[in-house]
């Protein structure tokens, strides 16, 4: 199994397209019901000042049906997942979770995944953790390994093939 299988299922599948369309429709319907543009989300947003993420505007655009545009925009990848918007939204819209959904949809639709997400995912597939055990430096530049420090063996999936098998199945299942 490759990352492509897990994230994009690159071949266009009718069933998958339907699933995505249904999710988009649900997203749009729910937002129309709840968000009333108070912008409390944006006022607290950690990514707002630095990266111009404006959750309330994204919600407004989604309500107007500009879903593909949002799925394909880079701005959805600027969220720091601080959860202030979810905590403070008086309507329980949870923009952070809408952004997670949009990013998932972008990935499902085969859009290129930014940054190191792919290597983290690859590492989870191969050893169950986002990265392998690292050698670290002390303040006076000496190298230390985990075992030098008297720490026990890392905890990771015992049966890697069984673990991978389920993740493969997950890729085929619809998110």
């Amino acid at each position, binding site marked *: 199994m490759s990352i492509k299988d897990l994230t994009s299922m690159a071949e266009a599948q009718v069933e998958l397209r339907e699933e995505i369309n249904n999710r988009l429709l649900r997203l749009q319907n729910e937002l129309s019901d709840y968000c009333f543009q108070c912008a409390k989300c944006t006022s607290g947003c950690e990514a707002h000042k*630095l990266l111009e993420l404006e959750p309330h505007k994204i919600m407004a655009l989604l309500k107007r049906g500009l879903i593909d545009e949002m799925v394909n925009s880079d701005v959805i990848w600027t969220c720091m*997942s601080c959860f202030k918007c979810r905590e403070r939204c008086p309507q*329980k819209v949870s923009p952070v979770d809408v952004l997670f959904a949009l990013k998932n949809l972008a*990935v499902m639709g085969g859009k290129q995944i930014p940054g190191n997400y792919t290597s983290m995912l690859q590492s989870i597939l191969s050893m169950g953790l986002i990265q392998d055990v690292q050698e670290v430096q002390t303040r006076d530049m000496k190298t230390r390994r*985990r075992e030098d420090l008297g720490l026990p063996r890392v905890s*990771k999936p*015992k049966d890697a093939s069984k673990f991978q098998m389920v993740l493969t199945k997950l890729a085929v299942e619809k998110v």
Partner: protein
Amino acid sequence: MKKYTLYPGCVMQTEQYGYELSIREVFPVLGVELVDVENFSCCGEPVKSINQLLTLYLSARNLAIAEQQGFDLFVPCSVCHFALSECKNILDNDGGMRSRVNEMLASEDLEYKGKVGVVHTVDLLYDHVGVKEIKKHVKKPLKGLKIASHYGCHLVRPSEIGRPVDSENPMKIEAVLEALGAETMDYAEKLDCCGGLLLVNLPESALTKTGQKLQAVEEHGFDGLVTVCPWCQRMFDSRQKKAGETVAAKLEVPVFYLTQLLGLAFGLDERKLGLDLNLSPVDKLKV
């Protein structure tokens, strides 16, 4: 001795050894026994942007493994603690999703039943052990040190899934610090994000967040910053130099794990607390 299963996550056990070392030193002193278990994996939260169901499955898998031990699960990483708490919240309230996840877990002979609780360093110290008990073990009070606390976003919010601290005015770290004899002070940037999760795809911006918060801590006249999350620590401590370069400032903020400060106040050996692994200028503080 009260027993907890230790869930080490990814970042702590592959890189942030100072947290793990100090946890393993400090909790036995407080009458908490930690049980190591094989077979855990990533909690899934770091790849939630890619596939949310994968995140849910990975969290459920870890909870199911913990259930086989029967003890509550001690999760020192705020990101993991969030993921496992959210997973619990979803599976305990959505029977359909629960059976769907359990079908997948069956291939590894696992089942999620919802039987274990999930605790973090902060509530383990404040709610389970208690400030009174902590005070009893203080041999070298952290007198005259004014410490800023950083809780980390994932520990604080969202309150609807149950978090160990108040969502707008968390004070439990301060209470523990004061029990150690340190001074604390509220500051405007206390709830600001470390930028950690953005390091994956927008490192410049992530480090700017880190640098800005460290600058604020310095300007407020704190002697140091304390964290309770390996993601936050690796921004504020491991990457402090880079963060300083990003915001064009020379940063010199000593950054500790809360458990390292506990160990120092208890009179434990610095080496055993992994203090030589902190890359920020922790020598500045003479405890």
